C-alpha cells in the first residue's frame, strides 16, 4: 500500500486501505473488531464478504457507509478519499438486515425519500420510483403501508429505496437472512439480475457460503477482523489458502501428511503426500512446510466409495455412519483401522448405498486433492 502514492488509473473503484475499528473497551486478546482490511472492488463488481458471526462484516460495511468512524485506515471511492465525509454526503445505497423502512410512509414515499433529499423534480421522482419498484417487481404495491408487506416484499422495498438513487456503491448487510429458504433463493437470483441490469458496484455481506458463491464475482472470506482470502468463488472453494477458508467455504476433509516429493512451481505446483491410512496422495498446490509436512484438502463430494472385494488394491475403510438428506447421502468413513475419519458425500440414488460396518474401497478424483496451508486455526 505504501508504494506509488499517486498511482493513476486504479483498478479498484472502492478501495479500503488498512481499515481498522477498535471499539471502546475492546482490544483484549481478541484484538480489534476489524483489524486492518485492504480491499479493492472494481467498478461494477459484486463482491461478497463472507465470514462467521462476529467476524466484523457489519462493522466493515458500516465504516464504508460512514455509519461508524474507523479507528484507522481509509475508504476511497473513484480515487477520492471519503473517510471523513459524513454519511449523508457519501452517495451509498445501504440495505440493512432489518430493512429499516420508514414505518410512517407508504411504499412509494419510502422509495422516493432519497430522491426528495436530492431535490429531484416531482415528475421525475414519479417515473424513477415506478421504475425502481418495477425492477424489484413491486410496481403494483406503491400505496401500501410498509407494515402491510411480507418480509420478502419489505426487503425488496429496501432494495428499491437504495437503488433508486443510483448510488456510487450499493452495500447489502445480510439482506436475505430473514427470509425462508425458497424466497431466499429467489431473491438471490433477483439481486444478481438487478446488479447485472444496473451495473452498480456492490458489496454484499453474508455468512451463507452458498449465497456468496452463487452470487458474487469475487468473495472476500473474513475471519476475526481480517480478510483470510480474496478470490473468485471457484478460487476460494477449490483452492482455499488456509484451513479456515477450506472449512468455512463448504465442507472439507483436512488430512495432514508427510511430503515425499514435490514437482512444478507456481500454478502448476504439486506434491506427493503420504497420509496414514490412505497411502500416497498426489495433490496440487505448494503449501509445504520447511519440515516437509503438508495438509491435503479433500471435499466430501469428490471422494468415492466402492464395495471392497478381497483382492482389490487401494485404500480401504469402514463405514461408521450413513445419513440420508434427500439429495445426498453423507457417510463417515474410518480409513484403514487407525487412519483418519473422512466425510464423504454420494448423490442419493446413484450406485450402491452402504450401511454402517460396510467395508469399502476409498477413491477420489485425481484433480481433487489440494494442499492447504495449516494456519492452526480450526473453524
Amino acid at each position: 500500500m505504501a508504494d506509488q502514492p499517486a498511482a493513476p488509473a486504479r483498478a479498484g473503484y472502492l478501495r479500503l486501505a488498512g481499515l481498522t475499528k477498535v471499539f471502546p473497551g475492546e482490544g483484549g486478546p481478541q484484538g480489534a473488531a476489524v483489524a486492518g482490511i485492504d480491499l479493492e472492488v472494481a467498478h461494477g463488481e459484486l463482491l461478497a464478504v463472507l465470514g462467521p458471526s462476529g467476524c466484523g462484516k457489519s462493522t466493515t460495511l458500516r465504516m464504508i457507509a460512514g455509519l461508524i468512524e474507523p479507528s484507522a485506515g481509509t475508504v476511497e471511492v473513484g480515487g477520492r478519499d471519503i473517510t471523513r465525509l459524513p454519511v449523508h454526503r457519501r452517495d451509498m445505497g445501504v440495505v440493512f438486515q432489518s430493512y429499516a423502512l420508514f414505518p410512517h410512509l407508504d411504499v412509494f414515499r419510502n422509495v422516493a425519500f432519497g430522491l426528495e433529499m436530492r431535490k429531484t423534480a416531482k415528475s421525475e421522482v414519479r417515473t424513477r420510483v415506478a421504475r425502481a419498484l418495477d425492477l424489484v417487481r413491486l410496481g403494483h404495491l406503491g400505496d401500501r403501508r410498509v407494515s402491510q408487506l411480507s418480509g420478502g416484499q419489505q426487503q425488496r422495498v429496501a432494495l428499491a429505496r437504495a437503488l433508486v438513487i443510483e448510488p456510487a456503491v450499493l452495500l447489502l448487510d445480510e439482506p436475505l437472512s430473514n427470509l425462508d429458504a425458497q424466497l431466499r433463493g429467489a431473491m438471490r437470483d433477483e439481486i444478481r439480475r438487478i446488479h447485472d441490469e444496473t451495473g452498480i458496484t456492490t458489496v454484499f455481506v453474508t455468512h451463507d457460503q452458498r449465497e456468496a458463491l452463487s452470487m458474487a464475482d469475487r468473495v472476500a472470506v473474513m475471519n476475526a477482523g481480517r480478510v483470510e482470502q480474496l478470490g473468485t468463488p471457484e478460487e476460494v472453494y477449490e483452492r482455499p489458502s488456509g484451513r479456515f477458508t477450506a472449512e468455512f467455504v463448504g465442507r472439507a476433509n483436512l488430512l495432514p501428511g508427510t511430503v515425499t516429493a514435490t514437482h512444478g512451481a507456481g500454478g502448476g505446483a504439486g506434491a506427493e503426500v503420504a497420509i496414514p491410512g490412505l497411502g500416497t496422495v498426489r495433490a496440487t498446490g505448494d503449501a509445504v512446510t520447511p519440515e516437509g509436512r503438508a495438509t491435503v484438502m479433500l471435499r466430501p463430494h469428490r471422494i468415492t466409495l466402492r464395495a471392497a472385494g478381497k483382492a482389490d488394491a487401494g485404500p480401504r475403510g469402514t463405514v461408521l455412519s450413513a445419513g440420508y438428506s434427500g439429495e445426498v447421502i453423507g457417510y463417515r468413513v474410518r480409513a484403514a483401522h487407525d487412519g483418519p475419519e473422512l466425510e464423504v458425500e454420494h448423490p442419493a440414488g446413484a450406485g450402491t448405498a452402504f450401511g454402517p460396518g460396510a467395508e469399502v474401497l476409498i477413491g477420489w478424483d485425481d484433480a481433487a486433492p489440494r494442499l492447504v496451508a495449516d494456519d492452526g486455526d480450526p473453524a
Partner: protein
Amino acid sequence: MRSGPVARIGWAVLLTVLYLFLLAPVIIVFIESFDTSTYLRFPPQGFSLEPYRQVFANPDFQAGLKVSAVTAATTTLLALLCGVPAALALTRLRFRGRGAVEAAFLSPLLVPNIVLGLALLILFAPIPLTDTYWGLILAHLGVTIPYVVRTVTAALAGADPRAEEAAATLGAGPFTVFRRVTLPAIRPGLFSGGIIAFLLSFDETVISLFVSGHTVRPLPVAVLQYVEYRSDPSIAALSVCLVLLSVVAVVLVERGLGLRRSLRP
C-alpha cells in the same frame, strides 16, 4: 382466569365501591356547583347556574386563568424544546457520565415541591425573578422537564435507529433525519409529554405559592387565596371546570397513546 358467579359479583361490588370512593368528591363538588346557597354545604339548597357566572365574572380568577394559561403554554413549549434534545442525547449517544446526566434530569421528581419552592424563592428573590412570568415559568420547567424526558425517552426506545441511519445514507442531514424520521416516530410521545407538562404547570400550586406574587398570580394560587376568606358554590363550579379540563387532556393523551399503538406493525 376462570371464576364462579359469586366471585364475579364480588369483584363487581368491590370495583363499584372503589370507584364510588374515588369519584365521591368529584360527584359532591359537581352537585354543589349548582347550589343557590352562599356557602358550601351538602345537600344543596337549590339549582342555579349563578356559581358559574360568578366564576367567570371574578376578576381574580380571570387574571389567574390568563397567568396560568400563558405560563402553562410557555412552560410546555420550553419543556419540549429542552426535554426532546435531552431525551435524544440520553437514548442515542453513548457518553461518559450518561447515567449521572439522566439522574440529574429526573431528580426534581425526588425533591418535595415545598423544598423546591423554598429553594427557588431564596434563589429568585435577589435577582429579582419572584412575581414575574419568567420566574414562574422557570420554576415550572424544573418539574415538567423530567416528565417530558421520560415520555420522549420511552417513545424513542420504540423508534428504530436503523431507520434514521437509512435516511442518512439516502442523503438526509442530521436535522432532516430528525424532522422526517425521528419526529414522526416519537410524535405520540411528544404529544403525551406536552399535555402532561401543560397539566402539571396548570395545576402547580405549591411551588407557585412561593415564587408568585400579586402581579403574576396563577389560578391555583388565586383559588387558594379566595377560599382562605370564603367558601361558596362558585369554588365548586371552578373545580368542575378544572376537572373538565383535565378530563379533556387525559382523553387527548389516551388518543395519543392509542395512535402510537396503531402505528406499530
